[in-house]
């Protein structure tokens, strides 16, 4: 079994302020995870704002370098400080999916321009026919066709079409891994499921692995195979999505789950979270603790009592 992506003991520390008034923020602390090349999966990173989930995603995309530890893709270290050729090679394998479909394309430019550039750069295609064929086959995978996209500007298409076109663009080089940072947080309810379902079908039908970053536990439960839950830069729980979310063990995971608004009691107006729960969860923020494996396959951060 070979690994596709290996994140080993990665930390990221940001330094704020100027030369004299230094302040540091530990965005990610000692995070490890790995994806296998053989079985495609949707791997979810759950966290609130400030949890470090976006920073982790940016490091996986090579947009940010870890302060400590290493991220490697197929055995090669991920970094943006490499030659252009090497960087392009990496980008052919790992592609992002964006948050807001209306922002994913330059409103002043035609949509096919991005698809064409991708096909030219990553597939080294030159001829018109080859380019069109590559673009069309990628668009077919998301239920669109080149005829629907060619020559059109973003404002001429719906949010759903745009998000599909953006994902199709990412699929052109046949990447084994997509990184989707909050792909549904900015879209309307009616669009949300169509995107989530599309990610699911990418995994099942095209065998593409997806790193899905979200704050929404419900969609995470719906599509992911495995997940991690992050609190203030640390992974506090990690394991099979159903195992963890059906019965979270770490106090913070429990708090998150308890805070999810359910529709099952619609109309009953239950909005009280046990206040002790929040206290227990926040008390643990400063303690390092360590991840311990449980018999059911998950890992949970545990703390030594002083």
């Amino acid at each position, binding site marked *: 079994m070979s690994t596709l992506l290996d994140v080993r003991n990665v930390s990221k520390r940001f330094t704020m302020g100027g030369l004299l008034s230094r302040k540091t923020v530990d965005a990610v602390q000692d995070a490890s995870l790995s994806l296998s090349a053989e079985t495609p999966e949707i791997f979810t990173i759950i966290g609130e704002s400030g949890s470090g989930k976006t920073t982790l995603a940016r490091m996986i995309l090579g947009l940010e370098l870890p302060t400590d530890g290493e991220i490697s893709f197929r055995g090669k270290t991920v970094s943006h400080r490499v030659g252009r050729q090497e960087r392009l090679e990496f980008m052919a394998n790992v592609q992002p999916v964006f948050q807001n479909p209306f922002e994913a394309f330059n409103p002043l430019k035609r949509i096919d321009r991005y698809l064409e550039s991708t096909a030219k750069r990553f597939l080294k295609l030159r001829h018109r026919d080859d380019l069109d064929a590559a673009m069309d086959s990628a668009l077919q995978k998301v239920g669109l066709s080149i005829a629907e996209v060619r020559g059109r500007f973003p404002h001429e298409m719906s949010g759903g079409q745009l998000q599909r076109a953006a994902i199709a663009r990412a699929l052109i080089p046949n990447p084994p891994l997509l990184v989707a940072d909050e792909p549904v947080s900015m879209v309307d309810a009616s669009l949300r499921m*169509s995107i989530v379902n599309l990610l699911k079908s990418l995994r099942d039908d095209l065998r593409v692995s997806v790193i899905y970053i979200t704050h929404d536990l419900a969609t995470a439960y*719906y599509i992911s195979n495995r997940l991690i839950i992050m609190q203030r830069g640390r992974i506090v729980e990690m394991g099979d999505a159903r195992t963890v979310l059906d019965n979270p063990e770490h106090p913070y995971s429990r708090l998150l789950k308890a805070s999810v608004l359910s529709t099952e009691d619609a109309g009953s107006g239950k909005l009280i979270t046990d206040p002790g729960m929040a206290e227990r969860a926040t008390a643990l923020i400063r303690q390092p603790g360590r991840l311990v494996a449980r018999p059911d396959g998950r890992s949970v951060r545990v703390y030594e009592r002083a």
Partner: protein
Amino acid sequence: MTEDLLKVEGLKAYYQMNYFGVEREVRAVDDITMTIRKNEIYGIAGESSSGKTSFIKVLAAAIRPPMRIVAGSVKYDFKNGPIDVATATPAQIEAVRWRHLSYIMQGSMSVLNPVRRIGRTFEDFARRPLGLSGEAYRARVLNHLERLKLPADVLNAYPHELSGGMRQRVTIGLATVCHPEFVIADEPTTALDVVVQKEVLGLIREIQQDMGSSVVFVTHDMTVHANMADRVGIIYAGRLVEEGPTRQMFFAPKHPYTAHLVASLPRIGDTAQRPALEGRPPSLASPPSGCRFHPRCPLAIDKCKTDVPPLIQVANDHRSACWRWQDVEPLVVPQRHEVMA
């Protein structure tokens, strides 16, 4: 039967724009009739650009050009007398502001003056309507802050020094410190994290029950409505398409759009395939004929394309604007599920 506090009748509010010779009319609110009762939370749901924000701007008497009320009335029955904000003079509106009618605007960062301390803002907003002076005023504000679980020293802080959750509680405090009879809340928890969101929602409910006032709560997030609202109204393309008691709306919707909204919500503990609604919300500048939902509706028949369905009583306290409301089935049967804490 409880009394009505607000009666909206045949309300039409359009944006009329003329920009460099291009005239455009956007029918943001197109013939809405509804009532809101005393002491209830009424949830308004709808997608972006469905007209829900424009609708509550009218309710809040915050109508500014290019928006204009074209027809209809918005009648409140406040303790100090009835008022129709569609026709009232600025002075009459001034007389009910904050004391009787208050508003929690969307976006807690941008609604607070960035260069003014919170305490000053409280004074600007609340001192005159409260009609209290010195110690009494101070005690009232501090008491209110305590109820919102805010420390007294937020009064000395600038907005940028507070966290998102704190800021949102401050804006709720500003809107409720005068114990208004009617509060309009526009997406007050959208930018918040789940844990804080639940806290803030709980707080709004608590305060509403304390004050016994009516709250109109607007958000696109159906799960929030499920937990907050006594009744829910769904707005689609400028029209109210369905309204009813929250429980019925979620378990027995009578409009295909509502049925879809409810069905598309994933739940922890349930991995059944969720349907997606294709197509996009119609443009309010040139909405479809007949029922505005027909191009996306799985139940649409020819009649839907030509005739506008009226909002009719379909069950006790439950109204729907659909020709085929009797055929609407919940798309995903809600399962009862043990919730583990």
